[in-house]
């Protein structure tokens, strides 16, 4: 052991900063959160042990089930919409027939660098029921005014639109880098063999992008489960479009129920771990990892 330590101490020393930071800023807080989730604590006095009370209350709290449902909607719609649109845009940007590529690449990336809070306020105006531009257009086309942010049934739509609009550019760039790494020779060979555009897309492009798309899917999953700004700014009635992360913040820092908020975050950790593990297991079964 001493010999191994002596032999590897320099490499251990080099990787130690990560582990120290991981221990201090991630592992210890997670363990602390787990402990706090079994207490009632407002952050100022001493935590009072309440056992499973917070978890039991969670099962009865409609705001939690609403937030959970909303976040699942954001996750599924986010993964589908973002991957599809980002891929389409990346393919367009990669097309040899596209002119002014630099201009389009820059403009495509712009939404990502805009502050989400500022964009949220603008989207709030766009989706205003009475004075919003979206409803003005709908009305001009003879359609009804939609209560985008004033009815629970519609309140998630502006959130999904804002979130996907902001985040698509980032994944477009990632997918575009993947597309640029696919050798042109595959396409030339396929063309010689008589493969059409669709065949080339399904037999060359998609299979060669699968690792990057898996990475994107994981990242979008984590991003959607941690979504905060969009539903916070474009708040709908009650908890109709509240995300789980937002609810956690609300309980922790608006009502100072840190025990309950910690219980929520434990659930969030479990969900994210389960999803990530499930995705890896599926990939492993498919022989991809």
């Amino acid at each position: 052991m001493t010999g191994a330590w002596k032999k590897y101490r320099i490499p251990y020393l080099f990787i130690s900063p990560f582990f120290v930071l991981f221990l201090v800023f991630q592992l210890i807080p997670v363990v602390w959160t787990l402990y706090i989730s079994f207490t009632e604590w407002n952050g100022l006095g001493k935590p009072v042990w309440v056992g499973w009370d917070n978890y039991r209350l969670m099962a009865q709290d409609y705001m939690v089930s609403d937030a959970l449902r909303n976040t699942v909607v954001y996750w599924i719609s986010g993964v589908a919409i973002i991957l599809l649109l980002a891929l389409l845009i990346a393919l367009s940007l990669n097309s040899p027939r596209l002119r002014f590529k630099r201009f389009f690449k820059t403009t495509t990336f712009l939404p990502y660098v805009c502050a989400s809070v500022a964009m949220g306020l603008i989207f709030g105006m766009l989706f205003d029921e009475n004075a919003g531009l979206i409803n003005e257009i709908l009305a001009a086309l003879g359609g009804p005014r939609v209560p985008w942010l004033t009815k629970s049934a519609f309140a998630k739509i502006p959130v999904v639109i804002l979130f996907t609009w902001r985040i698509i550019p980032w994944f477009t760039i990632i997918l575009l880098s993947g597309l640029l790494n696919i050798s042109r020779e595959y396409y030339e060979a396929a063309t010689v063999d008589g493969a059409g555009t669709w065949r080339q897309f399904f037999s060359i492009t998609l299979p060669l992008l699968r690792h990057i798309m898996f990475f994107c899917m994981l990242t979008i999953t984590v991003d959607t489960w941690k979504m905060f700004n969009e539903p916070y700014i474009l708040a709908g009635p009650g908890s109709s479009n509240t995300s789980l992360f937002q609810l956690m913040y609300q309980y922790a820092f608006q009502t100072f129920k840190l025990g309950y908020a910690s219980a929520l975050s434990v659930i969030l950790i479990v969900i994210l771990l389960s999803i990530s593990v499930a995705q890896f297991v599926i990939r492993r079964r498919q022989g991809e990892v």
Partner: protein
Amino acid sequence: MPGKQEAELSARESDMKKTLVALLLTAALLVPLSAGGSKEAGKGPGGSKVYPEGDILIWATGQPQFRKMYYQAFLDRHRDIAPKVNIEVVSLKTMAEGQQKLAMYALSGDYKSLPEVIMLDTVGVVELSTAGLLQDVTDYYNKIADQFVDGAVADSTVKGRIFGLPDAVRPQLLYYNVPILKKYGIDPAGMSTFDGYYQAGRQLKEKSGGEVFLSYVDPGNWTWRYWGRRGLMPQAGARIWDDQGNIVIGSDPGTKLALNFFDKLNTEGLLYKTRMMQQPIYEATDSGKIATFYIGAHWAEFMRKNLTRTAGEWRVMNAPVFKEVGKGGAPVSTFFCLVDTKTNEYTELFKMLWYDFQTNIDLRNAWVAEMEKLKGPYSNPVSKAMLAHPFWQEPSPFFDGQSFRKAEGDGLANPSKNMMVTASDAEADIIISAELEKYIAGEQSMTQAIAAMDRELKLKVKKAKLP
């Protein structure tokens, strides 16, 4: 050659040592000078305390940069006792935000980042004083209490001790657009009761063909804040908790009176649905869609700043009353609370500053005049002497020559008592507002909403934590 190199190295080493010694000596000489000059409080020329170099950090809502103008000028006038003290302000979106940040800093033991002063409402005072984060100012305030309006510290008193110096006591008011009411033949005097207010709304709707609305309704949490907690609820004598902290909102007659009246306005389509404090509400108001606002005196700042086409068309009167109760609007008090930073080196200086702002008539009036020019925020003073000054009766151009300052003072007459505030009220606000929002969205009736408020409070809060 090696011998020459060694000699050179030795000479360099010797030079470095000399330099190091010289630096250490210089530092040793400078340390006492700097400590004496900047960190230790000494005595000024007149024998008064001299405050150490540094910043007085203030966290406040409502564009505190304007207030900083007055405070900084005060410090500039008192350079004999505060030669190197400056004011730093941090603007908070809400008082709850300040409360959160303060609690987080204290929780992490980071007392150095705490502000010296924080602006709080009653909920914040109760929560933070209970947590021991605020300084007790009872002895200081009681010596000067007779100079200020009665009840100025009623809402910053917890278990008989005062934890906040009053900054403003602002009434609930009714703002109305004169040309609109005139056009539809409505006498503003009729709106002195809530029945009359409702009738005015019906007339506006009928005569304008649904184009003009009595007032607004926000689909989010502003409705509970402005129509509920600060408006109709205290005026109807409504309660969320009884004196023991038990939840009574579901059976409380005051709650029913307040929320059923709001229900009547809303279901009859007298309220224009739009987001509060955002551009669409100002657009709608400037285009003549909204005729009145039943809201606190602070709304005047937003009107002056955001309404351009209807400037000069507005007037203001006392809030309507429920005939059954007969009480006017409940005042909203805000306080400057001294945070217990453990060192508390600027506590006395801030008390002087606060006192000057509240009692220095000439300078305060000059600052208010400047605020009017800059469209900045200001509120009526809480000092009796200042309120009696003719300046506070002067006409306001935005209000068609009516004196808004006088109207604000008049609005404090016959006040309703504010709802009891407990340490559970922040959570109660979220629970109640969520049910009200679902009601506004048309997803439940008001009766169902009140029942749901009661049920959810009993499930999540169980019993209010009394201070």
